[in-house]
């Protein structure tokens, strides 16, 4: 199926989200995660200025909640998740704690990375979620985790999220090629939000879906409207199951949209790179609103349930802010220790010290042959 941002908008408002056959618990969890992520991002946006206490670039993911929500239900604690710079959804999807996320944004010692990484480089190794700002680099590492999992023959998988622009970097295709040739247990999720900073996809890539180009490498692909969380969940579920069953990698291209500017809490639409119509379309077709309409209509959820959920989430957010603000700044700046390990426990256990003899310098160098 050929899908594009233009095609999605041509279809008009999206109304065919279907929850038929889905158990209510799964639906409520998807909804709750999206609501939690949305409220978390909106609270951070409100707080970012004028306080200026979060002194790091933040790429907010308002409008792109469907993929992280789906992953939050599909991944196990042992699985690996690698995220792009718009990281908060992925971080929370892996069950990493919100208070350490907030403290990291504040540059505090209690942050997920003790204030070394910030929003765009955040990781939570205990939760096996790792971020990085330089588009496709983390995707290559996910392939490596998949390779390691395959060698260790466990039932884990590796999932990597990227934007459509990551496919313009060479390592993306090296990773797809390698994952395909080795049938690695990897799921690639591409959140196609059309813009790389302010540059639209059609200025950067030839027409046609990214997924069709990926498919040419022998990787299974799915292309879908990424604000339909039910479709996203179903596609990722299939991909995760295939990976776990040793059936190789899948690439899922989910069309979605970010509401905020590329970076920071402000709107960057004064630059004029996207139209008011386009923004309006995507806000009308918000992933949370689309699901909520069905849940309300079919009596899965009530307005009172939503208010209860919101209150619980807001309390968690308030606690996370309080934790972040009350935490001290990091003090220790032992640069060498921060960059290199102070100990070598395995080498200590396996290797012996020995003594060398006098080297004889009067020997011929190797003379290489023609190749």
């Amino acid at each position, binding site marked *: 199926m050929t899908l594009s941002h233009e095609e999605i908008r041509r279809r008009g408002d999206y109304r065919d989200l279907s929850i038929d056959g889905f158990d209510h618990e799964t639906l409520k969890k998807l909804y709750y995660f999206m609501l939690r992520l949305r409220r978390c991002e909106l609270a951070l946006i409100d707080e970012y200025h004028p306080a200026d206490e979060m002194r790091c670039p933040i790429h907010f993911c308002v409008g792109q909640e469907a993929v992280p929500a789906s992953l939050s239900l599909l991944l196990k604690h042992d699985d*690996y998740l690698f995220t792009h710079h718009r990281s908060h959804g992925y971080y929370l999807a892996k069950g990493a704690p919100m208070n350490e996320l907030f403290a990291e944004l504040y540059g505090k010692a209690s942050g*997920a*990375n003790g204030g*070394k*990484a910030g929003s765009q*480089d955040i*990781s939570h*190794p*205990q939760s096996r979620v*790792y971020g*990085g700002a*330089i588009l496709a*680099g*983390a995707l*290559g*590492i*996910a*392939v*490596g*985790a998949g*390779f*390691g*999992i395959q*060698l*260790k023959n466990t039932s*884990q998988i*590796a999932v990597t999220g990227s934007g459509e622009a990551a496919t313009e970097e*060479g*390592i993306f295709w*090296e*990773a797809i*090629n*390698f994952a395909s*040739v080795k049938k690695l247990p990897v799921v690639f999720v591409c959140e196609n939000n059309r813009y790389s900073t302010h540059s639209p996809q059609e200025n950067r890539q030839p027409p046609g879906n990214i997924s069709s180009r990926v498919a040419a490498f022998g990787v299974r692909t799915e292309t879908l409207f990424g604000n339909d969380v039910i479709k996203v969940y179903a596609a990722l579920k299939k991909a995760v199951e295939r990976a776990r069953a040793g059936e190789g990698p899948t690439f899922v291209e989910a069309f979605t949209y970010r509401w905020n500017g590329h970076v920071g809490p402000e709107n960057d639409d004064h630059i004029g790179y996207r139209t008011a119509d386009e923004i309006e379309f995507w806000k009308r077709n918000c992933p949370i609103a689309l699901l909520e309409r069905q849940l309300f209509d079919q009596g899965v959820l009530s307005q009172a349930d939503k208010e209860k959920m919101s209150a619980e989430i807001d309390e968690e957010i308030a606690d996370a802010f309080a934790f972040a603000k009350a935490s001290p700044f990091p003090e220790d700046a032992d640069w060498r*220790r*921060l*960059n*290199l*390990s102070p*100990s*070598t426990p*395995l*080498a200590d256990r*396996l*290797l012996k*010290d*020995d003594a*060398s*003899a006098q*080297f*004889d*310098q*009067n*020997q*011929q*160098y*190797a*003379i*290489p042959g*023609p190749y």
Partner: protein
Amino acid sequence: MRKLNYGKAINEALGQAMELCPDVIVLGQLVDYKSGIFGTTTGLVDRFGPKRVQDFPVSESVMTATALGASLVGLRPVLVHQRMDFMLYSVDAIANWLALWRFKSNGQSSVPVTIRVIVGRGWGQGPQHSKSLHAWFAHLPGLKVAIPATAYDVKGLLLESIFGEDPAMIIENRSLFSMNDHVPENAYRVRYGQATIRRKGKDLTLVAIGVMVPMALRVAEQLAKEGIDIEVIDPRTLTPFDETTICCSVAKTKRLAVADPGWYTGSFAGEIISRTCEHLGTQMKAAPLRVCLPDSHTPMSSALEARYYPSDEDVANRIRVMFGRQPACSAA
């Protein structure tokens, strides 16, 4: 005392590492072929199987990223690049990910990846098969850099890297592969950040990096006959770097020369001289000297190669001048 050449010492280290720990794997183009990267990986696939010794697509960038990801899962990958020039495709994976992984995880996540990289020299390797960019990589925090000169050191440093907790790069000069040295049979370690004094002397400290070590020792032998007593120090690793051994020597000799197989500008030799002068600059009896490659890409023609790489006589003459002597006539 058993002797082994540099290439065979690498092969032995890899085999022992794989025996000691099932998590050690070897990845690289053609590592599972009989020729085995100048003999350094020969036989490993027969001993340890095709899962642990794997050929890799010509995708240097994702090969490095793959090693990083695999190390997160608990493996200890060794990558092999037949030429440093090809490894440059993976500089993003090295500089933006591997080297800062520990730092940006606040020390919670280690990525013990060992990168073996060979520098070509001779037989017209030319500008894309001969670059020695050890200074570039030594500039990078979070990456250990070793440049072993002897078979003894390459085995010990390779084992130390594989079983260490940080990413490490072992820079191997192709010219050294045939050179024999005493190599113990056991699995021993050579620690990072520990220079070795290869020859004692009192008149000049000559620090020699990698392939320049045998040359420095020959020059010291020659100049001893002319009454210049040279202490030759091999730093062995550039990150971490053993400044103390060099400074203690220079405090005694009051003179410093560095022989570096890299380009002059931005050379690691410049770093060594600068560090030493920060401590001892006012005590030195002569301006420090560095012998490097010219600031030029490597020529193919053997006639130009002979002028491009410094000879024993070039180094000896620079030192003679430092001591106010006449350069020997045979020098060009």
